[in-house]
Structures are given as C-alpha cells and as structure tokens.
C-alpha cells in the first residue's frame, strides 16, 4: 500500500511537471526539457515543412518570419495553417 501511494505520488508529480500545448485542436504533452521554446522549435519538432505556413498563438496571427522570435508557453493554443489547393 505504501509503495502504491508513492507510485501515485510520483506519477502525480511527474504529470504535473509536464507542459502542454493545444496544436490544431489536439492536446500535446511535453516533458520540460523538450518543451519547444519558440514557434520555430515547435515546427521543427513536428516536422512541418511548407513555406506558406502561418500560425495563430492564442488567436494572435504570427507570420513565418516571426516564428523564431515567438516564445511559446505552457497551456497555449496554437493553430498551424497552410495554403493548399482550393477553388
């Protein structure tokens, strides 16, 4: 019993250290040491390629040339949007 509580306690502490971002509607968890610090780092981590990507961070539009200087924080909502074929 003692051991189980400790494990739960450990799990709670571990989960509570995790950072999260909601990217394109999906919640994503990041351990603190891999949590991307900027939009550029997030795109690199996700492998997002197209040159026409634009972002919204908590509803604020961010151009691609501003990605590297745009800090991202735990709990933010991020939309990554691109141009694609359409009529």
């Amino acid at each position, binding site marked *: 019993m003692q051991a189980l509580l400790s494990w739960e306690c450990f799990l709670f502490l571990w989960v509570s250290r995790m950072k999260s971002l909601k*990217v*394109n*509607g*999906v919640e994503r968890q990041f351990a603190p040491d891999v949590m991307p610090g900027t939009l550029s780092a997030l795109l690199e981590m*996700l*492998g*997002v*390629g*197209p*040159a*026409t*990507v*634009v972002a*919204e961070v908590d509803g604020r*539009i*961010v*151009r*691609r040339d501003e990605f590297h200087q745009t800090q991202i924080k735990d709990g933010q909502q991020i*939309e*990554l*949007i*691109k*141009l*694609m*074929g*359409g*009529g």
Partner: protein
Amino acid sequence: MDKLTIAGRTFDSRLLVGTGKFSSPQVMAQALVASGAQIVTVALRRVDIDNPADDTLREIDRDRYLLLPNTSGARDAEEAVRLSRLARAATGIEWVKLEVTPDPYYLLPCPVETLKAAEILVKDGFVVLPYINADPILAKRLQDVGTATVMPLGSPIGSNQGLKTRVSLEIIIEQSSVPVVVDAGLGLPSHVAEAMEIGADAVLVNTAIATAADPVEMAAAFKLAVEAGRKAYEAGPRAPTRNAEASSPLTGFLRDS
C-alpha cells in the same frame, strides 16, 4: 482580346483557375500553364500534423501567378475575416476571394454574412473578390462598399451545370461598374464561352479542369473557349430574332415570279 483590370492590376488572361482536386502537384502545374491563367485560387487549412511536410502548392511559380486565397470553409463573417487575415499573413498580399457558405449541401453563399465581411475587409485594406449568388441587388451593394469585383455563380460549386443563372447574370453585367467574374458550376468550355459572350469580364474554373480525364487538355480547351467568347462579345453579337432572316439575296431567283 483586351486586357482584364482588377483593382488596378492588369491581366492578359480572363480565365482564373482553382487549384483544388488535382491528382498531383505536377498535373496541376501543367494544367495551369495550359490554361494561360495568371490568377489562381488557393485555400487555407490546418497543417496535417500526421503528414506535416505535405505541400501540394510547391509546384506553383509565385512569380508567374497571383495567388488568390479563398475563405472556403467560413460559415459566417467572423470566420471569413479571420481566414482572410491569416491568408494575408501567409502570402503577403491583400487579395482575397471572399466565400461564406454556411450550407454544406449546395455550398450557396450567404448574402448577409458576405456583405458584412466585405465591409470589414475593405476597411482593413483588402482587395475583396466576393463569391455570391447571382443577385443583382447584392452585387450592387457589394460594389458600393468597395469590392474589387463581384463573382456570381453560374450554378452550385462543382456541379458542372453551366449558366443556370443566366438571366440574373445579364442584369449584374449590365449594372456593374466592377469586373464580373462568373464562378462556380462551369463544367464545359461552352459554358464559359456563353458567360464571356454575354459580357462577363472573366470566369473561374476548377473542378471541370482538375477532374477531367486529361486536365491539361481540358485547361487548354477552357483557355480557347474564354478567348472565343470574349472575342465574340467584343465583336458585337446580334440578338436572336423570332423569324428567319435570309443570308442569301432574296432577288435573282431562277424563276419568273
């Protein structure tokens, strides 16, 4: 063929082409060349995080074509304005094809939300090309708020039905002081020729080219039809008459009475 001018920019081609539904980026690029188009529409969507490197537009030469982002998927003015601002941030240009289509079955544009969005976007510095039903009153209201064109539909998007709205299109063309771009439902070169013959300034085609068995040949056929229709309009077509009018002389017949 005289040139098309929209918001101070001049174009040799009067055929706008959409970039959706092509089987591959390469086929799309070849079809765009064959169409002679200088304005191509694109959409904005979320990046697919499971396929994040996908870039269907990589073959589009941005020096050759003016990208015209649309607001497809917007169900009201607020969504359309948001998409327009994202498109501007993505492309660096301020042109937008405004589409507000709350009804997913017929994809008919909402006149109320379209007018509301157009007012906001024009004030925000956008060059607005609104997709509308063929409603002459709405077309006038939009031109009055400062849209660069009006884009009335021939029939529902992607339906290939042709100019079902011809009577209303003729009224819009007669009354409009901005270019009239007939958009949607144009399934055959003969449909676009008809639109150009009645005086449309340009047409927009996507599905009919992209989903043809040979999109490149079909793009070439649409190019010819747009040019033929425009030339016919410029040449001054005669109105239909109820009775026959003989083409050959009515004298000198080989009979005595």
